[in-house]
């Protein structure tokens, strides 16, 4: 909770900082960007509402056990590939993603596979992509970024195999 508070303070502190910089450029600049930011907010709220309120239903029909099952002790590259698919398919927020990773580590999942899972989840968990990234960014960029990101969970797993356990 205190971490969340810290993040909020940093966040609004940054808004204040760049807002002040914009204000020093002149009142019209400040007003224009304030209006623009507010308009963006108004435009984005319906989509965020749909995503956040709807994501609970999506998470409810993809039970965590299914994802955890994919992260079994299957070592090697097939296990890494399964972990990448599992990371992309994991619904819900960071609590679910990291909890699944922890469960997999404790129940005998390989470390490179869990690293691949966490990295894949961070890079292109489908729910974050459709809920957050698509509303805010040009769709062309989002798909391009996701496609380009596909090799990197494998790269992370390879590095993990080379340098060993934490």
């Amino acid at each position: 909770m205190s971490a969340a508070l810290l993040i909020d303070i940093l966040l609004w502190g940054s808004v204040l900082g760049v807002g002040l910089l914009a204000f020093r450029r002149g009142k019209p600049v400040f007003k224009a960007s304030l209006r623009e930011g507010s308009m963006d907010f108004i435009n984005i709220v319906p989509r965020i509402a749909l995503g956040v309120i709807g994501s609970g239903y999506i998470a409810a029909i993809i039970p965590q056990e299914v994802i955890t099952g994919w992260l079994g002790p299957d070592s090697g590259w097939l296990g890494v590939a399964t972990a990448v698919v599992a990371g992309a398919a994991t619904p819900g927020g960071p609590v679910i993603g990291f909890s699944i990773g922890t469960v997999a580590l404790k129940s005998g999942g390989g470390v490179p596979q869990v690293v691949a899972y966490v990295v894949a989840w961070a890079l292109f968990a489908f729910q974050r992509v459709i809920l957050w990234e698509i509303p805010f960014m040009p769709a062309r960029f989002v798909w391009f970024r996701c496609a380009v990101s596909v090799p990197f969970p494998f790269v992370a797993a390879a590095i993990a195999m080379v340098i060993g356990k934490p």
Partner: protein
Amino acid sequence: MSEPFPNNPAPAEDAESEPRPGRIRKPIGWSTIIIAVLVAVSAALVWRRDGTEGVLDILTHDLSLFGGILPRVLAGCLLGAFISEILPHEKVSRSLGPNSGLMGLLMGTAFGAILPGGPFTAYPVASALLAVGADFGATIAMVVSWTLIGYGRAVAWEIPIMGTDFTLWRIVISLPLPVLAGALGRFVYVRLYPKRDAEDDET
């Protein structure tokens, strides 16, 4: 950013002379429709399994989540708008544009790593960078850096759940990835859209 006054009029003029690409698009698009269908189908499945009560349980929980997130979304939108207004377009396209080289990718990575907040800040800010002249490569480096080596999610979620050792180790492994992803992005982009790249070069 460090010398705001001497070139005061330049950014404003710049912003007016070429209409800025809309950072955030219309509220309804095909992706919204897909999500709406996905949510409707999921909600129907939940209703069949758990009845009306199950549907309402999830609804109230997610509504409170939504209420908590809203102020942060506003902060993210304001941050994006201010940043796109105060960053001089010329400088951004020089230091984060298609010809910014490794330095541009490193700057994108550094920017993503220090950016505060969650997805509600990272994506509006990334979108603002794209709008003021950063290329896909540098922006990919920024987004990937935010998600893999940014401290926000690591401090708030990963360390408490997965432990400090695993988290730090995972971050060390991830260190080269943003630059590599940005480089790959640039490499592919130039080959996919050679014409657009040429246009960018002119500016």
